């Protein structure tokens, strides 16, 4: 791994985080027609059934409290300072909860569900795709192709809807909704983990099945191209065992583009996972995001979006670091360029 490669990747990581932080600073200030504070005060006043006469002054006072009356560059600096400590201020919808606490409550759910499901779907899909392309695989595998193809084309959350209908509504073997039984406080005891696992099966399955379909088709394509290359013929002419040709020559090489494409599509996949959470009411970032959207809680919304971008950026960075380990040519490339 060359230092330049590493520096470049770190540079991109910082650039992404900066862009995300700036984006959530600029966007609300562009939408001048919508004032979160005025809306929130209006909602509260409406709920109390009492409209204050000096509402405009109240809005001003709150704006001063949130520092919205200061010069724009000053605001930008404060915003960046806050984000560096992951301080997103108070939630407007769940006041007096802080956005940070709401997010840290939801984050473990998303990380566990999305991380595990993505890993399983990637490994399972790649293996299935490799077997689909391998000429000596059992014939019946070819008949699964239409199913795999359909799965790969279906958005995660629609598959989730179908799974809920089949396994939670028609055959009631899995719970319909939520992340754990009602009335249980999340803790790390065994009984709670088992309970939570039962609730994660269907949302996890939605991500795994749809994801595996995608990965296997892609793997199949790469494998088929690789299998026609000279080095495979050479290996089999040398008398290397079929099994070894499969794993060490064909799969090993086809995995490299798979990992590249994993890094590229993480953003797309987490978008899908967010919607899966919404469909299942799973207590992660996705469901929290829906609450933030429906109550126009801008602090919460921007906090969640920033954290999601951060997760994807860091995960991509880690994959990028693993990449030269998988593909020894990377370090040579630099020198010849």
């Amino acid at each position, binding site marked *: 791994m060359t230092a330049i490669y590493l520096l470049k990747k770190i540079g*991109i990581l910082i*650039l*992404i985080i900066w*862009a*995300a932080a700036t*984006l*959530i600073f600029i*966007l*609300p200030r*562009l*939408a001048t*027609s*919508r004032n979160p504070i005025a809306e929130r005060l209006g909602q509260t006043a409406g709920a109390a059934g009492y409209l204050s006469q000096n509402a405009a002054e109240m809005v001003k006072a709150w704006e001063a409290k949130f520092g919205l009356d200061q010069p724009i560059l000053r605001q930008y600096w404060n915003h960046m300072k806050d984000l560096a400590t992951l301080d997103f201020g108070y939630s407007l919808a769940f006041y007096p909860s802080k956005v940070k606490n709401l997010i840290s409550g939801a984050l473990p759910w998303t990380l566990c569900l999305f991380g595990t499901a993505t890993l399983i779907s990637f490994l399972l899909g790649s293996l299935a795709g490799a077997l689909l*392309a391998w000429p000596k695989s059992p014939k019946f595998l070819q008949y699964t192709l239409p199913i795999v*193809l*359909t799965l*790969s*084309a*279906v*958005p995660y*959350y*629609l598959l989730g*809807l*179908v799974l*809920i*209908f089949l396994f939670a*509504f028609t055959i009631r073997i899995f719970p*319909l909704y939520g992340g754990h039984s009602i009335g249980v406080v999340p803790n790390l005891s065994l009984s709670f983990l088992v309970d939570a696992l039962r609730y994660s099966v269907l949302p996890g399955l939605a991500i795994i099945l749809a994801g595996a379909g995608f990965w296997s*088709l892609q793997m*199949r*394509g790469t494998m*088929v*191209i690789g299998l*026609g290359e000279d080095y495979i013929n050479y290996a089999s002419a040398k008398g290397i065992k079929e099994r070894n040709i499969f794993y060490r020559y064909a799969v090993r090489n086809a995995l490299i583009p798979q990992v590249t494409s994993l890094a*590229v599509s*993480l*953003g*797309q996949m*987490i*978008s*899908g996972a*967010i*919607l899966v959470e*919404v*469909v299942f009411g799973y207590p992660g970032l996705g469901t929290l*995001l*829906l609450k933030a*959207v*429906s109550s*126009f809680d*801008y602090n919460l*919304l*921007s906090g*969640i*979006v920033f954290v*999601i*971008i951060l997760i*994807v*950026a860091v995960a*991509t960075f880690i994959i990028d670091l693993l990449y030269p380990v998988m593909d020894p040519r990377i370090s040579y490339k630099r020198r010849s360029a």
Partner: protein
Amino acid sequence: MKVMKSILSKLRHDNPSMLAGLILILFLFFFWLAGCAFVDTKRAQPISGLPDQRPSYQYLLGTDSNGRDIFAVMIVGTGLTLRVGFLAGIMGLGIAVILGFMSGFYGGVLDTIIKGIVDVLLTVPPLAVLVVIAAMRAEAITLNFMIILVASLSWMLPTRTIRSQVLSLRERAYISMARLSGMTGTEIIVKEIMPTLIPFLAAGFVSISSTAVLASIGLEALGLGPQSLPTLGMAIYWAISFSAMLRGMWWWWAPPVVVIIILFVGLFLIASGLDLVANPKLRRLR
């Protein structure tokens, strides 16, 4: 007619997946066309019928809790969703072509900047950005606004493909020949490089369309779509927020799911058919 027949038989033989995909998408298109001609599409509006009706002769696919005729919603929604895919595909492809060619053909600082933007944007989850923009908008979201929104975040991968293709084509002998014989840069791009890239451009169009439709349906499912239009994604949003599934109203949530699946499978088949054209080594699959 004879030409049609020979094209069809050639497609069936050489590229069945493209043929199957085209049939699925054309099926949806004609479903919309015929639906508009024979069914009163006003019934897709709320309170145009009785709420919560099971499928019957009067309401082929029943009605939802707001009194929309689901069959009419499917017709109008299919049309709207196809429109999102088509327009966003054209817009996104336009961006991808311009940036990809500038980056690949002219290179230099421009290439570094464009490549950097693509790399950064590829990492950012599109839905996260779209949600912020859509939520910040004060006025009701219109279909055209949503098309522009989803198109603006779905051009990155095709840009990358086009760039790398242009980069390799640029070095070919026939391009040097064209340059020596006095063709300008634009002429070379349009007359020499573009035609070779047609399968890639078509694949880019399909991929942008499907990313855009996916994003738009995702936004709608979060309630951030055009509230007054009966798109497929809004149908799913209403079905979820009125817990259609728990109430056993399969005719509410299942039809949009089926139409969306047909659409995505169709687009996917076309994309893999185009892959076969662009990448002849894949023909070993058969």
